[in-house]
């Protein structure tokens, strides 16, 4: 039965992808893509990667789908012009690529060191019990530091592209028609979302969860508030802007401050590693949530696009 489940899941992924690629109506593509995200979350579960399933579920349901629906809502027409005529050569090349990839899977050399074993051996020194959190925030924290930097750059570029436009859009929707049912539902759901985000962050030290998943859930909550016409960013704009860079700056400050004690960059004193990691993760969750939200909030074209 497991086998049947896996086969159907895999074929379902392919069917969804085919739907995304070959539907002429772009709205249909977007909905297919949302379905694809959910199937992918199930796939991560089957690959025994619940962390990835958590992140995929939060991002797929709360962010990517919303961003795409928002974008397509501003297109005048959803149908695509006819695609290019020459297709035979690309098709053959792509089939060859797939075959080559699958064949190469069998031919790859055995790794000389076993990474899972290494991680398991040094897990007690990391200050957390969950191996993935240990990898992200202790063994490979360079990656995480640079990742938050990348996110920050993305948010800054979004702001630069949109300076002034968002403000104009905001005043234009001043007298928005807030739906009473949606507003009531959102104001009750928002605290639950915040609670779940904190729980996921806290759980990250001993079971699947952590800063990325928590941040994604937080961002989805903010997006929901925004969609239900709670203009949170109007009340605390400067605070929000500060929050964007907060995660990166605090992470960097912690990483360099250990050098005063004579340790290499980004290594925590063993006795306090757990507290250090939890602190950094809390700040990261906050920052990631704000950055992802501002990437949604900064989208241009809230008003009707040009008329020329």
């Amino acid at each position, binding site marked *: 039965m497991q086998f049947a489940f896996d086969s159907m899941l895999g074929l379902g992924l392919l069917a969804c992808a085919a739907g995304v690629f070959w539907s002429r109506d772009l709205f249909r593509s977007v909905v297919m893509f949302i379905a694809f995200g959910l199937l992918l979350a199930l796939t991560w579960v089957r690959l025994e990667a619940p962390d990835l399933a958590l992140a995929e579920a939060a991002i797929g349901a709360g962010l990517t789908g919303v961003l795409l629906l928002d974008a397509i809502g501003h297109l005048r027409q959803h149908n695509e012009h006819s695609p290019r005529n020459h297709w035979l050569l690309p098709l053959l090349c792509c089939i060859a690529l797939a075959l080559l990839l699958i064949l190469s899977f069998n031919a790859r050399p055995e790794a000389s060191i076993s990474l899972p074993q290494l991680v398991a051996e040094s897990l007690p020194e990391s200050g957390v019990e969950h191996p993935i959190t240990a990898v992200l925030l202790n063994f490979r924290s360079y990656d995480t530091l640079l990742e938050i930097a990348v996110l920050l750059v993305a948010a800054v570029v979004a702001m630069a592209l949109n300076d002034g436009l968002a403000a104009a859009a905001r005043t234009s929707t001043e007298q928005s028609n807030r739906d009473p*049912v*949606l507003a009531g539902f959102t104001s*009750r*759901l928002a605290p*639950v979302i915040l609670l779940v985000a904190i729980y996921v962050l806290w759980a990250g030290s001993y079971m699947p969860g952590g800063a990325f998943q928590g941040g994604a859930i937080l961002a989805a909550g903010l997006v929901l508030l925004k969609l239900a016409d709670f203009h949170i960013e109007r009340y605390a704009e400067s605070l929000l802007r500060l929050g964007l860079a907060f995660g990166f700056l605090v992470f960097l400050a912690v990483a360099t401050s250990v050098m005063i004690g004579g340790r290499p960059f980004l290594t925590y004193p063993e006795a306090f590693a757990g507290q250090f990691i939890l602190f950094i993760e809390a700040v990261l969750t906050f920052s990631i949530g704000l950055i992802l939200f501002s990437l949604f909030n900064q989208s241009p074209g809230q008003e009707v696009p040009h008329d020329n």
Partner: protein
Amino acid sequence: MIYLQYLLVGAGCLFFIVGTLGLLRFPDTFTRIHAITKADNLGLGLLMLGLLPSTESLPQALKLILIWLLVLAASATASYLIAHYVKAQSPDALPHADTTSEEQD
């Protein structure tokens, strides 16, 4: 106990199948809203009841119940929103129900 679990989970699964059948076979959007919000939520509730005895601890059991309540609230809101949306898109979509639904607007 195990047979009760089988029964509940099986019934839940049945409701999911019925819900999907409704989504595929019903003629218009409004009827399809019924199919997925009613059948699927009942199905999820039965399934959750069936899974409760297998949970390891009280917090896990409470989490299951929380999930069901969340889905209930979310489905109710979502169905309201989509019905409103469809009605705004095509005001003449409900020729026979105009008199009753006007009062809610």
